[in-house]
């Protein structure tokens, strides 16, 4: 799809003898026309892909305004008789717990994750990126290894231990890993970011007598802001969407975060009430979509650098 047409490259036009002024003007005009045509084709194809990709999302939003009977069979984007009845049902919650309680539970878990990950991963990443000590290489390899490790192999013993400690049913098992830098993705992201910061800064500080704590808190942390923002957004969204962890550790509905509440809602409402289900699904996704709209640049860049340095 590399679209450097031969005609635009000076090497080829030079080969065809000396072009007259007239000739090259015509050529330029032709190229301009061609690149405009190409641009139109590009936008047509891209918009078509966008339409296909976003259709499920748009359909989901519109469905929340339709009565359930109209949702299933209707391909149409426009509801015939829009109403907010589905949202009323969704906000009423399930199992005697209101939607806002579930929302707060999700929020507590997500904010806890963000705090834990920001603290623990930045500190650990500093050790990997800036301190020279025996064993660092080995630990770094192990850390990368955990990126590839299927989580299945640790959840069973973890569950057994948390069960013996009487912590099943609390948020401790869901949050402790975040405070112990167990999510290698974030450590890795921050290490990569720190390695790109100029070393002269901390060396100058060292000469001035600053120790690692000082360098970390007053030089690294302020400079790491973009990496911290990216990590926080991902940490928030992943925690918000997490289903497996809450599913195995939580059993009482008043502690449920939104994904578990949604599942309960789907199981307990009548099968045909897609309108209310969809309304709750949309409400559960709203914070994620909001984050996405505000921070999309950080997110996309975070993904891009992660892949490139891998």
């Amino acid at each position, binding site marked *: 799809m590399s679209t450097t047409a031969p005609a635009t490259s000076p090497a080829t036009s030079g080969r065809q003898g000396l072009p007259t002024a007239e000739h090259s003007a015509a050529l330029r005009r032709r190229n301009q026309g061609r690149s405009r045509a190409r641009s139109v084709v590009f936008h047509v194809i891209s918009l078509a892909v966008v339409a296909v990709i976003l259709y499920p999302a748009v359909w989901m939003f519109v469905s929340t305004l339709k009565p359930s009977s109209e949702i299933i069979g209707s391909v149409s984007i426009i509801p015939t008789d829009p109403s907010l009845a589905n949202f009323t049902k969704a906000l009423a919650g399930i199992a005697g717990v209101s939607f806002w309680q579930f929302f707060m539970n999700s929020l507590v878990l997500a904010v806890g994750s963000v705090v834990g990950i920001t603290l623990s991963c930045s500190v650990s990443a500093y050790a990997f990126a800036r301190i020279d000590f025996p064993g660092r290489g080995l630990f770094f390899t192990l850390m990368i290894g955990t990126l590839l*490790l299927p989580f299945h*192999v640790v959840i069973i013993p973890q569950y057994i231990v948390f069960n013996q400690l009487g912590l099943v049913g609390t948020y401790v098992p869901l949050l402790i890993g975040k405070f112990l830098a167990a999510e290698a993705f974030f450590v890795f992201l921050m290490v990569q970011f720190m390695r790109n910061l100029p070393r002269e800064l901390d060396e100058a500080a060292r000469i001035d007598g600053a120790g690692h704590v000082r360098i970390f808190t007053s030089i690294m942390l302020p400079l790491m802001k973009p990496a911290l923002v990216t990590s926080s957004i991902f940490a928030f969204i992943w925690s918000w969407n997490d289903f497996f962890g809450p599913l195995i550790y939580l059993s009482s509905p008043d502690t449920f975060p939104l994904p578990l509440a949604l599942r309960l809602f789907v199981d307990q409402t009548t099968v045909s009430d897609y309108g209310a289900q969809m309304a709750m699904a949309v409400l559960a996704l709203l914070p994620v979509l909001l984050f996405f709209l505000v921070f999309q640049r950080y997110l996309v860049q975070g993904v891009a650098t992660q892949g490139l340095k891998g």
Partner: protein
Amino acid sequence: MTLTAEARATRTPASPSPMRRRRKAAETRAGYAFLAPWLLGFVLLTAGPMIASLYLAFTNYNLFTSPEWVGIENFQRLFQDPNYIQAWKVTALYALIGTPLKLVSALAVAMLLNNSHRGQGFYRSAFYAPSLIGASVSIAIVWKAMFIDNGIVDRAGQTLGLPAGGWVGDPGRTLPMLILLTIWQFGAPMVIFLAGLKQIPTELYEAASVDGAGPVRKFLKITLPMLSPVLFFNLLLETIHAFQIFASAFIISSGTGGPARSTLFYTLYLYFRGFRDFQMGYASAMAWVLVLVVGAISFVMFRTQNRWVHYSGESK
């Protein structure tokens, strides 16, 4: 580095070694202090549990009585368990078909976007969005509603000549439905491909044009080799991801792995055995087989990468 070394050398010209040794010890202490959260997490939440589950894999344990050593019985039972075989079939099909399709879509769209047309940022974000929400319960609910009997996909399919009927209840069509869901999330690998494409020097393409290379040749001889490290990364991560699908399959099958075990993914079956039946030994054996398989796949990919992954310039 040179600056501090010089400064130190001028200050203590006679014997730098005791001081340097002391500094080194201080560095080591600082290193371990800063690494403490990760180290603690690694020992308590990763290494420890891995060893524990390796032990449990050779026992029968139901949480209430103490583990009973049974040798390799769990592993023998695994490979005679028709549900386990089914779980492998479903998961392998999903990974083998879904991952390549997702990556091909990601690469195709990345190449479409890799030019200087306006609006690129908008498209990139729009295509990336599904990756953020695709694995959520919310989207699983939407997907289910779209593919249900007489739903919009069913109706659209009928006009295209597909047999009528919902995908959700048809064992032959639940896997395609979930594969479509994973392809829908092509945005994350696409963003990575796009970043990789931008690093390919345009001179390479210009030189190839001068030599009369067509677009196909340029793709095969320039784009693919230059992109191979990124391709390698995407392939590895997406394959491992594919083994971990859970929420979508759980919600779409109403927590059953059905219809007719057609969505009985590996993680789902492990959840049933471990956290519904509390057969912790059996589930641990399952987990370890998965680790060995994923390890073998990663090993093969890393070992063969020098045959097809091309690292250029400063990166390696």
